[in-house]
């Protein structure tokens, strides 16, 4: 019915496409240039040849360790968040006690806490707990700051479950633990996926907590590693951009496989 093409909007969208894609093209193409080509030729000129040397440089320069650290931090953060929020969300929906409801309200107020403002006390606590410069130091606050959004998403999804389903389970004599496993978990699966994606992206791309809570190479995560490459490679910008490209690759693969989940995780709690 409304098939008349909207030319001004289409042109605007194409301009925006160029703005989005331009820098990404720059990222990938420069990462495939040799250093000599980068220094000798404008990026607007075609290179003589493409080379994967930069990727070799990066992969032999500590990248593997950073990647591994990133995976550990991400997996552990997601595991903690899912393990504590799923039962808690179930309790918020089915337990009407003051403690649970007040606690939930307080937790939602955490949505307003900027993590940036807490780095000094978090640093104090982590050093006092003798955890400074460990991966655990990154995991604990990263997980804690993911809790408000995770709870919001899970509670909203469980509130949509008809009360009759819980009651039917109760008539069958199922205890709360069985209800959690056989009813809550399956019904909350899309919401749990959203929480997993949201938490994983935050942990994967986190910068602030690793910056102030770790120091040595053995506990360095990817984002900090990239920043460190900048100093290490100096003017070897192609190698730096190869490292940046490699750091994006895992998430790009996830995007190709499950775009819908990734996007819903990104707007967790605020999307419509």
């Amino acid at each position, binding site marked *: 019915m*409304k098939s008349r093409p*909207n030319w001004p909007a289409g042109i*605007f*969208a194409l301009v925006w*496409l160029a703005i*989005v*894609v*331009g*820098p990404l093209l*720059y990222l990938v193409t420069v990462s495939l240039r040799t250093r000599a080509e980068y*220094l000798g030729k404008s*990026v607007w000129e075609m290179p003589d040849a493409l080379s994967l040397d930069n990727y070799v440089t990066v992969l032999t320069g500590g990248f593997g360790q950073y990647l591994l650290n990133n995976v550990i931090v991400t997996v552990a953060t997601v595991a903690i968040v899912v393990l*504590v929020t799923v*039962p*808690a969300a*179930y*309790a918020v929906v089915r*337990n009407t*006690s003051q*403690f649970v409801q007040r*606690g939930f309200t307080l*937790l939602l107020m*955490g*949505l*307003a*806490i*900027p993590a940036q*403002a*807490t780095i*000094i*006390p*978090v*640093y*104090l*606590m982590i050093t006092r707990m003798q955890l400074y410069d460990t991966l655990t130091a990154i995991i604990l606050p990263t997980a804690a700051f993911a809790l408000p959004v995770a709870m*919001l998403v899970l509670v*909203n999804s469980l509130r949509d479950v008809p009360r009759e389903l819980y009651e039917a389970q*109760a008539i069958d004599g199922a*205890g*709360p633990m069985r209800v*959690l496993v056989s009813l809550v978990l399956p019904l909350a699966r899309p919401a749990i996926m959203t929480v997993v994606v949201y938490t994983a992206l935050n942990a994967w791309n986190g910068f*602030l907590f690793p910056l102030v809570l770790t120091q040595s190479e053995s506990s360095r995560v*990817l*984002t900090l590693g*990239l*920043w460190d490459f*900048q100093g290490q490679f100096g*003017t070897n*910008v192609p190698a*730096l*951009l190869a490292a*940046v490209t490699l*750091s994006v690759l895992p*998430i*790009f693969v996830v*995007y190709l496989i499950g775009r819908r989940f990734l996007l*819903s995780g990104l*707007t967790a709690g605020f*999307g*419509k």
Partner: protein
Amino acid sequence: MSSQRPSAWYAVPAFAFFALFAALPMLLVIYLSFTAWDGLGTPTLNGGENWSRLLDDAEARASVWRTLVLMVVSWLVQTPIALLIGVWAAGKQRSRAVLSSIFFLPLLLSTAAIALLWQALLEPNFGAFVGGPLFLGDPDIALYTVVLVISWQFIPFHTLLYQGAARAVPPSLYEAATIDGASRVSKFRHITLPQLRYTIVTSSVLMLVGSLTTFDTVLILTNGGPGTATRILPLHMYITGFSGFEMGYASAIAVVLVVLGTALSLAVMRWSGFRQMSSQQEGS
């Protein structure tokens, strides 16, 4: 049988974890703002010294001003683009679906990756604009260059919000307007914009709070320079605390950040209403 309902214990791990690593730091930062602490020894109370110093600190005042400029300009740049592209991307056409999947690509990059990419791109000798402006090296435009990078990073996120909201507008509204002979512009003004008002509020506050707490982008791009041209409030706090080792004074700056952030977030609760946030549907 009351045992069929989950006991409060189910919620305790989540609450305790949050209390320890998010709520306690919030209280601690207020306490620390009344202490002198170099980051190594023990914090010692020094009364309101940090606070009276903050009132007289010209650099802090300047960084608050820069933060406000960053917030306002970012909002002015991001909102119209995200709104228009989001509404456009909500269309069912195949071409729009394909293009919007490309529009979302910047969302996959970490802040560190984006900052390093743009730094290389804008590098004056070997970047993409050799002979152009100095961008990050020019004190007069460095802050606006930061806005550019932040906008490139976050417009896709807000586009995503608007796309979702625009898809939820009942098609019948547009059909009725079409029958009445309404133009495209007037449909946008009289149907789309009013229908998106909650999303505009939510997106705006996320944008404002996001700009207020911008940190890693600026740290990597300019480290506050040239001079102090891009030293915004969170960076001022970080440099004061972790480079200047004045953790007590930095905590006072952090409290200012929290107060500003909370005021903005309360505004979102007020304008958009909690109902709006809790009645969202998954996956639409």
